[in-house]
C-alpha cells in the first residue's frame, strides 16, 4: 500500500510537507498529552501526598488507651479500641475508632502492644483463650503470645506498636498500619 505521506498535491514541495507532518505530529502530541498528563498527575495524588489518617494524641502521636492497672498481670492479651478524630479525605469525624490493638502487661510493667491486623492479608487476628494463641480467621495464620508465627502462612510475626506508660499509669500507643504480605515490617504511607 502506498504510504500516505507520499501522496502528491499540487502546491506541496516535499520539504514543506515534511515540516507540516512534523508540525502536525508535534503539536498533536502536545495538545493530547497536556490534558492527559494533568489528569494522570491528579490521579497520582495518593502517591504524591502524605496524609494523616487521624488527628489527636500527644505531641509524638501516641494515643491514650487504658490504665496499666486494667491489664491482667499474667500477660493475657486484651483488645482495645483506639479513638481519635478520623480523617477521611475532606471529612473529619470526631472521636471515632481508628484501629484496635492487643495489649499485654509483662513482668516489670513492660507493655507489649500488637497491631491486631494479620501481617498475611489484613484480617483481624483473635486471641484464643484455650490455646493461648492468636488465630487469624481468614487463612488460619497462628501466632504465639509473643507474636512469633506458629505456621508458614504469615510472612512475619505480629506487628508490634510503640507504647509508653506515663507517671499516672496510663498506657499510650502509637498506632500505625503496616504493609501486609511481605516479610519486612514497614509502615503504610
Amino acid at each position, binding site marked *: *500500500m502506498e504510504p500516505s505521506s507520499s*501522496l502528491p498535491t499540487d*502546491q506541496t514541495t516535499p520539504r514543506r510537507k515534511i515540516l507540516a*507532518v512534523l508540525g502536525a505530529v508535534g503539536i498533536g502530541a502536545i495538545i493530547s498529552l497536556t490534558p492527559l498528563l494533568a489528569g494522570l498527575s491528579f490521579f497520582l495524588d495518593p502517591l504524591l501526598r502524605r496524609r494523616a489518617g487521624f488527628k489527636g494524641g500527644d505531641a509524638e502521636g501516641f494515643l491514650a488507651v487504658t490504665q496499666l492497672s486494667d491489664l491482667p498481670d499474667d500477660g493475657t492479651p486484651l483488645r482495645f479500641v483506639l479513638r481519635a478524630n478520623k480523617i477521611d479525605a475532606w*471529612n473529619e469525624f470526631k472521636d471515632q475508632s481508628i484501629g484496635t490493638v492487643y495489649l499485654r502487661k509483662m513482668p516489670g510493667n513492660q507493655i507489649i502492644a500488637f497491631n491486631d491486623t494479620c501481617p498475611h492479608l489484613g484480617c483481624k487476628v483473635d486471641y484464643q483463650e484455650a490455646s493461648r494463641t492468636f488465630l487469624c480467621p481468614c487463612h488460619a495464620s497462628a501466632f504465639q503470645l509473643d507474636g512469633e508465627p506458629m505456621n508458614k502462612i504469615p510472612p512475619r510475626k505480629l506487628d508490634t506498636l510503640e507504647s509508653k506508660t506515663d507517671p499516672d499509669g496510663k498506657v499510650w500507643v502509637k498506632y500505625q498500619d503496616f504493609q501486609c504480605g511481605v516479610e519486612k515490617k514497614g509502615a503504610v504511607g
Partner: protein
Amino acid sequence: MNGMLNWLDDRTGYKNLVHEALNEPIPGGAKWKYVWGSTLSFVFMVQVITGFFLWGAYSPSTLTAWESVYYIQNVMSYGWLVRGIHHFAAQAMMILLGLHFMQVIIAGAYKAPREVNFWLGLVLMQIVLGLSLTGYLLPWDQKGYYATKVATNIVGVTPMIGPQLQQLAQGGTSYGHHTLTRFFALHAGILPALMVGFLALHIYVFRRHGITVSKSDQAKPAGTFWPDQVLMDAVACLGVLATILFFTVWKGAELTGPADASEAYSAARPEWYFLFLFRFLKFEEVDKLGLVFGALYVPGAIMGVIALMPFIGKWKLGHGFNVAFTFALLAGATFLTAIALKEDGADKNYQAAVKAAEFEGHRAAELAKEFGIPPTGALSLLKEDPRIQGPKLFARHCSSCHRHNGHNGLEQIVMKEIEENGQKIQVEEPATAADLGEFGSREWITSLLTNYSQTFAPLKNAGENGEKFLTGEMAEWVKENSPTLLQPENADSLKGLVEFLAAQGGRRELQPFDPALIAAGREIFKGGKLAQGTLTSNCSDCHAMKPVDGTESLGDGAGPGYPTLTGYAGKQWLQDFVKNPAHESFYGADRNLMPPFEAKLSQKELTLLIDWMMGDYFRSNHVEAGGERKE
C-alpha cells in the same frame, strides 16, 4: 514490525481506514476557516479526559458534592489544574460552538445535500447546552445552585407537563441528593454517550459530502486532510488549549460557598453565555407576556427557524435571510449581554453580593482546611461561623438604624425608595443610630469621650428622643471636658482612661492591654484628676463600675439612664444590652430608643452576632492580614 502490521491489516483493514481518514481530498486546499469543527472535537476530548479523572474524586450528594470539589480544588495535587481545564474548556466549547455555527451558515454548509448533517449539528448543540447546564450544578455551590434552580423552574412552566418534567429532573419536588445523582448521571453518562454517538454520525455524514468550498476557492489546487489541514487544526487547538490554560492559571475555577436553600443569593446570575437570555427575561414587556413566552416560546421559535434554515435557504433570498438572521441573533445576544454587564457593573449592591459570595467560598475553604469538614457538611461550618453569620444578622436586625463602617454589615449601602417629581428613585437611607464598625475599640471610646456629638450624630435623624441623647448629660459632659482631655499635656491621661475602659470588655483583638495605663485610667475614672486639671465630674459619679480585674468597685451608678460600665463593650455587656437596652442598668425605659432583641434573636444568633462584633472568630493569617477585616 511490517509483518505484524500486515497481519493486523489483514484482520481489520485498518490501513484502508487510516488512508481514508487522512487522505480525504480538500478541494481548494487546507483553510484556517475549516478548523472550528476540529477544535470542538478536541475540546470534547479534553472534557472526556479531565472529566473521567474528576469523576474519580467527585461525590454526588448534598453533603459531599461541595466538599469533594473543595478537596479537588484546594487539597489534591493538580486538582486545581484538572478542574480548571474542565471548567474553562466548557466555556471555550460554547464560543467554538458559536464560531462553528457561524462558519456553517456563512459558507452555506447547511444547504442540500447537507441538511441532515446540519440537524445533527443542532442536536449536538443541544447536548453541549445540556452538558453545560448539568455540569454547572455539580459543585453544589451557591452560584451553581441558584442558576440551575432558575433553569429547572423554567422547565416547570412548560405547558401541560411542566411540573412532572421538573420533578423528574430534580428527582423530587425539591433539590436534594437525587438532583445531584440525576444531574451527574446525565452529565457524566447519558449526555456524553449521546454526544459520542451523534458526533460519530456528524463526522460520518460530513465525510460523505465533504467540505463546502466557496466558489472563489474552487479554482485553487486541491489539498489533502493530512498533513496540511491537520496542521492547521492542531495549531488552532493549541491556541484553544493555551487560552484554557491561561484562564486556569490566571483566574482558576471558582467555587462559591456551599449551596444553602435557606439563604438568599443576591449575586445569582447564569453563566455569562446565558446572560443574554437572563436579561431578555427581565424586560418588563417580556415579563408581562409570561415566563412561558420568554423562556420557552421565543427560544423555541428561534431554534425552529434555525432548524428550517435548509429549506429557507432554497429560496432566492433565503441564504441572505439565514445569514442576516444569524448575525441579528449574535448582535441581539451581544447587546443584551452588554446591557446586563453594564447594569451589574453600576449596581454597587450587586457587586457587594458577588464579593460576599466569593468571600464565603474562600471562608468555607479556609474553615474546612483548619477544622476538617464535619459529617453534616461544609455548610454547617459556615452556619457556626461568626465571621459569616454576624454581618448577615447585623444587616437583618441592626442595619435599619445602625451602620457598620457606613454599610449594612454586608458592605451594601442601605437604600430606600422615595418619590421625587412623581418618579420613584432609590436614595441612601440615613442612619438613625451610631455606626458600630469600631464599637468597643480604643478609637470608639476616645471618640465617645472627646467627640460625643460626632459619634452619635445619626441620632439627630431619630426624632425628638434622639435629640435628647445629643443634648443629654453625657453630651454636656463631653462638651465641657473634651477641651481639657484633648490638651497635649493630658494625652497620657486620656490614653489611660481609654485603656481602662477598653480593658473592661477584654476584646481579643485589642489585647494586650497596658497595665500601667489601666491603673492610671482607674484613678481618673474614680477621681477625675488629670495630668493637667480635673474633670467636671467623675465617671464613677454616674456609671456603675466593678473592674474586670477584680479590684474594688468604683461605684454603683446613678440608676436607669446611666449605663453600667462594668464589663463595658464585652461579650456579657453587649449581650445584656442587646437583649434589653431599656433595662435599668442601661438606658432605662424612659430614655431608651432601641428595641429589645431578647425575643427576636435566639441565644445562638446573639452569640454569633456579638462574636463577630468583638472580632472573636477564627482567622487564618494569609487571608485577613493587612486589615482585610474591614474589607
